[in-house]
């Protein structure tokens, strides 16, 4: 048997092996896709109910007697008025046959607790409404909302039989409308699912990430430039390099502990502030940015530097006028990916008090705030059923942000990257 025959004999086997290997690769990708598909579908299906909300139409009579104020009450008196009773009376007037105390309170419980504050704000904005009849749409309680959204009505056990009849009557009378849930995007956190929104958390995320960007980008790029362009090659620099690479792999909770010890206990910065969150996330993001920036700077061919130096530029001029602009797409990509990672982080924030119930929307770097992933965690832990949908909706929003950021990174790379 000569060599050609030997090769021909093994050929079929080699082809089979080749095919098998490709099939394995395809299977791996397919498996990944299936997991992603199942995950995203599950989240989308669970989140759908959260994007709509049911409102109930009430005829509200701003009767000074019910409100317990004088006929010509001023703003200060109106602030103290009994809006709770007003909301209760308004829904009771639709069901005059309900007499028992317990039933009455069950009936009133079908309105969201935000109704009284809505009526208050309405009257405070337009005090002349006092003594007038108005048609007002108010939010339904989350249990009523869930009832309307459930197809199998026997499964909605949070309402009793009477409440179900009332709910059906309201719907039959055209007093119920299903609307887009804007509350989800305009409100801060709340313990009542129908009033809970992600705006507080999103704002907190914005401030935190802004601090992270402002600190980690200049620091990271400066460190990368120095290490790549100016640092001498010796053991110390090697040691620093090893440490930076190590830092990138340190579990994020460790940065939280460090933040607690240094920023809060030593420097006395306030707990739960986006500034501290941003500082901690800066520590976490720095190694990623340094590593990405270094490889981007390294990828700029030496001929560019030599040409610049050759016509008399100083080393600093070379770096800032030639190397850095060319390396920028790569640096930006690394930064965006690092920030996207920071955006999805919760563990280090746990230690510095950003895992907290915060209703007010933060207005600065020192106001108490949480961030989006923390909001998801808090809602997932809440007993109220309607928070399941809210959790998934918040996950979708966070995913959207991440997709946009990563998309931007790809775009920057595609648009500005130069190959040599």
């Amino acid at each position, binding site marked *: 048997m000569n060599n050609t025959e030997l090769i021909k004999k093994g050929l079929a086997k080699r082809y089979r092996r080749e095919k098998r290997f490709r099939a394995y690769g395809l299977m791996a990708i397919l498996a990944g896709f299936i997991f992603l598909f199942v995950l995203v579908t599950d989240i989308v299906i669970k989140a759908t109910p959260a994007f709509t909300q049911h409102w109930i139409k009430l005829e509200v009579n701003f009767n000074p007697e019910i409100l317990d104020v004088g006929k010509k009450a001023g703003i200060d008196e109106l602030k103290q008025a009994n809006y709770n009773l007003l909301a209760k009376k308004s829904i009771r007037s639709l069901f005059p046959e309900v007499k028992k105390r317990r039933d009455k*309170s069950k009936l009133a*419980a079908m309105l969201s*607790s935000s109704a009284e*504050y809505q009526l208050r704000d309405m009257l405070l904005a337009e005090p002349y409404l006092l003594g007038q009849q108005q048609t007002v749409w108010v939010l339904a309680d989350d249990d009523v909302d869930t009832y309307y959204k459930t197809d199998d009505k026997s*499964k*909605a*056990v*949070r309402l009793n039989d009477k409440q179900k009849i009332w709910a059906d009557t309201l719907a039959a009378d055209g007093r119920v409308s299903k609307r887009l849930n804007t509350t989800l995007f305009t409100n801060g956190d*709340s*313990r*009542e699912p129908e009033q809970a929104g992600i705006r507080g958390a999103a704002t907190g995320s914005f401030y935190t990430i802004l601090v992270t960007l*402002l*600190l980690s980008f*200049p*620091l990271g*790029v*400066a460190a990368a430039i120095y290490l790549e362009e100016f640092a001498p090659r010796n053991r110390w620099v090697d040691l620093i390099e090893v440490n930076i690479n190590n830092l990138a792999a340190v579990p994020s909770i460790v940065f939280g502990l460090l933040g607690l010890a240094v920023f*809060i206990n030593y*420097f*006395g*910065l*306030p*707990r*739960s502030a986006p*500034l501290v969150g941003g*500082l901690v996330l800066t520590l976490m993001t720095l190694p990623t940015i340094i590593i990405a920036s270094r490889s981007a700077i390294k990828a700029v061919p030496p001929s560019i530097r030599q040409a610049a130096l050759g016509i008399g530029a100083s080393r600093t001029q070379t770096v800032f006028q030639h190397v850095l602009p060319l390396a920028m797409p790569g640096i930006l990509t690394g930064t965006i990916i690092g920030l996207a990672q920071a955006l999805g982080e919760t563990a280090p924030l746990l230690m510095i*008090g950003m*895992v*907290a*119930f*915060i*209703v*007010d929307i933060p207005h600065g*770097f*020192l106001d*108490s705030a949480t961030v989006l992933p923390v909001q998801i965690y808090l809602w*997932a*832990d*809440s*007993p*109220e*059923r309607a928070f*399941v949908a809210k959790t998934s909706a918040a996950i979708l929003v966070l995913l959207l942000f991440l997709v946009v950021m990563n998309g931007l990174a790809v775009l920057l790379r595609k648009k500005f990257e130069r190959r040599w």
Partner: protein
Amino acid sequence: MNKLLSSAAIALILAGNVQAAGRDTISIVGSSTVYPFATVVAERFGKSTSFKTPKIESTGSGGGMKLFCAGIGIDTPDITNASRRIKSSEFETCQSNGVKEVVEVLIGYDGIVLANAKTADRLKLSRKDIFLALAKNVPAADGSKQLIANPYKTWKDVNPALPANKIEVLGPPPTSGTRDAFSELALEGGCKTFDWIKAIKAEDKHRYKSICHSIREDGAFIEAGENDNLIVQKLEANPKAVGIFGFSFLDQNSDKVQGSLIDGAEPEFETIADGEYPVSRPLYFYVKKAHLGKVPGIAEYVSAFTAEKAVGDDGYLLDKGLIPLDEEKRKQVRDTATKMLPMSM
């Protein structure tokens, strides 16, 4: 390098501002069991008064005490929630760190339930059954005063009246206050029914506690983490499993899971309130008196929390699963709270 310097300067300026500024938001830490109630009060408080909405961190009872007792000053919390009473050791830490005057406020009770999926039969347990099924070491079945490693595999082994399902209980980890209360009330309650073990308490308290509070580690008890929603989901998927969590989760998920009877009592609002259901615990919060007047709104928040509107027989916290105190006790608590009478131990 300019960028670097300027950003460092910004950081320094920001840091400088902080120390000058006070705090106008009440800071609350503590138990994850009280968290669902405290947050509702805080939210309403923020909406109906001109004060800012208090910030509430869920750190667990022990973690909250640690932060609370760390000292006086705006960088320490004003209030801590607890699903158990403050320990004397914690009180001493408070004292030695300058937190001299602490006001104790009892808000109500929370039941701990053992629940299974609605698709399965409801369990009728006694505390003795619970102890025998879950303790690490149990008295030998022959009646001799010997402890043996827990041999029971199914509920039927424990008590012939129970179904022949494998013992599979999902419960909270040791760091949780729910777990402490469960050990103390359910396990110890069953443990005490053995007279000779009860006798040990007088002689060797430590040994008694280790017998009565140790949970088996052979896989029958599964630590399911702090997320009670997860336990409910797992119960739904596995009708043979039993889960341990707070009453408020049972209340919210009554379409999916059912609470087991314990010593003949169903876990319901009324039975927990009148003490017929044996596994329930008190919920507290503690106020740092030194912060009154330093941080605006503390007294108002406390009075909002103890108001009849919140914790009364028709209060809004009851919708969230809180079990109220009786009327007389409520009055007493309200009195202490308005006068801000510090506790002593």
